[in-house]
């Protein structure tokens, strides 16, 4: 009796076959456009095939046909929850290729703008995760916080989402005069909403049971699969590009990197929650230390001449025409520069042949390798665990499919 009990194959006998479902590109949980082809055994996921590419807009092909300075509106649309972060990444890569250095004030403003982009990215991601788990009020508290932040960004960029604020060699415009005061007002409101959000969720047993020990990954596997950003820090690996390779003025600012211990969804959630605090802290320090002075590099080749110069002398007028029509002549060579975006390391690999437009403008998308590792994290767990895991990887269609 005992041995035939052992080789009794339940599935073969009870003729159950797995249920194949297309969790298709327009499913409410895939709030980016991505499709999961799931084979379910009851509710547990036996196999999952992730299919991306629904938001592929041929970013690289477009960049190869565009001038160096014309690419900025395209970089806004990469990680569209934090537009200005991608601008900063691209601008730093091009400046590294050219070999120019922007003045001190411009570096501080770029740090402020990119930290605000990170805040907006984290607000969006954490709000979406709360909504996917049913806590709609918590979702709206963070969307409201993001709303105030976007009004702030709009006051110096001019647009809420497509910021297009950074240029090669500097910025489009300086910060408005009453910017520090309005920032303080917004941060006070956001901190209150942050506490409400944290009180609603972080001690709540239902939320803890849903997020803890689901979608975990070990540190070695995370490194092997190219994880970076909050998901890698949640595994306990303190890798943050702002700390390991300080760019702009991050070495003058003191801030901490939150790291988790087990690498499951709850750690990723907490790491992002704490990074919001750190970003606010960084922006406050920057607003205190920001020096006065010019915001563009003084090298006439690499920045927009001012209207006074154009009207006053002939040379800069000719130079301006040549730059706009043929594009700025970036010297020959190749460069790779990485910055810390919301989801991880956002790298730009540029190859130039000295003409006005790039030979290759490659974006290293942080969420691309993490989505490829989704089957490892989710296979064998329940269908309901796929939702928080997919949220915490924070796949942004624009950045992953380019």
């Amino acid at each position: 009796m005992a041995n035939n009990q052992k080789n009794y194959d339940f599935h073969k006998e009870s003729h159950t076959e797995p249920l194949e479902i297309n969790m298709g590109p327009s499913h409410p949980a895939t709030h980016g456009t991505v499709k999961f082809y799931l084979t379910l055994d009851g509710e547990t996921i036996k196999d999952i095939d992730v299919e991306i590419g629904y938001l592929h807009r041929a970013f690289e092909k477009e960049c190869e046909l565009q001038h160096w300075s014309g690419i900025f509106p395209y970089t806004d649309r990469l990680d569209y929850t934090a537009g200005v972060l991608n601008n900063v990444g691209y601008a730093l890569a091009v400046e590294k290729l050219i070999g120019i250095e922007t003045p001190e004030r411009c570096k501080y403003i770029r740090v402020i703008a990119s930290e605000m982009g990170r805040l907006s990215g984290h607000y969006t991601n954490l709000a979406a995760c709360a909504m996917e788990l049913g806590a709609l009020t918590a979702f709206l508290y963070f969307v409201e916080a993001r709303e105030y932040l976007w009004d702030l960004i709009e006051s110096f960029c001019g647009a809420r989402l497509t910021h297009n604020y950074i240029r090669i060699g500097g910025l489009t415009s300086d910060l408005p005069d009453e910017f520090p005061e309005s920032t303080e007002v917004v941060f006070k409101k956001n901190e209150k909403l942050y506490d409400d959000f944290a009180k609603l969720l972080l001690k709540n047993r239902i939320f803890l049971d849903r997020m803890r020990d689901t979608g975990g990954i070990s540190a070695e596997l995370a490194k092997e699969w190219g994880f970076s950003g909050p998901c890698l820090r949640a595994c306990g690996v303190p890798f943050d590009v702002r700390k390991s390779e300080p760019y702009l003025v991050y070495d003058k600012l003191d801030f901490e990197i939150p790291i988790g211990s087990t690498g499951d969804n709850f750690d990723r959630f907490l790491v992002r929650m704490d990074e919001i605090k750190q970003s606010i802290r960084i922006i406050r320090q920057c607003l205190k230390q920001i020096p006065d002075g010019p915001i563009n590099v003084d090298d006439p080749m690499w920045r927009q001449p001012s209207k006074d110069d154009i009207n006053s002398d002939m040379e800069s007028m000719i130079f301006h025409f040549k730059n706009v029509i043929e594009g700025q002549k970036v010297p020959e060579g190749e460069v790779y520069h990485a910055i810390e975006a919301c989801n991880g390391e956002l790298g730009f690999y540029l190859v130039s042949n000295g003409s006005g437009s790039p030979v290759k403008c490659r974006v290293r998308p942080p969420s691309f390798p993490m989505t490829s590792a989704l089957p490892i994290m989710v296979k064998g767990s329940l269908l309901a665990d796929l939702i928080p895991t997919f949220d915490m990887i924070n796949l942004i269609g624009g950045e992953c499919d380019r």
Partner: protein
Amino acid sequence: MEKQTIGKSLDSAAGMNNQKNIENNKNNSSVVINRVTDKFSDSKLIIYAHSLLGDDTIVVQPAEIINVMQFLRYDKLLTFDMMIDLTVVDYLGNQQIHPYLSDLRARFEVVYHLYSIDKNHRLRVKAPLMEENAFINSITGIWGGANWFEREAWDLYGIVFQGHPNLRRILLYEEFEGHPLRKEYSKTKRQPLIGPRN
């Protein structure tokens, strides 16, 4: 740079910049490159190495990519445990950027960016490929993360990665003809319309 320098022609300014980088390559090439070059010094595996603009780069024979990568991954001093990025560059008509491209008659170049978390240094490994035999061994065995990057390189550039678990298109639909990021694929090219799949 006072104002009168604008008068000088633009190309010289670009040329001057490049000149400055090539000299500094001779004297203080970085620790990583020294370690790699003296490991593979016997076989002429390393074609070229430079650290222009601060990025350490080595160019290797495409046939030997596997054991170079294995060495880089499992060597005690280098420990490149993260494969940050894998991409392909199409140098059709731009061979003059890198000297070795023209004498190898190479058109494509598969570019790997590696990073080591504990040692905090980066390396760019490049493998030039000729147009007719555009294939290279897949490194999914060493880093699992390379799986999707290689599928994307196949999808957009048409580089075959031998030994890849399931090399199929990732960003474009299966019935897409051609590889869009190649230089000869013009922007205004249209695809044949396909009916609904099922």
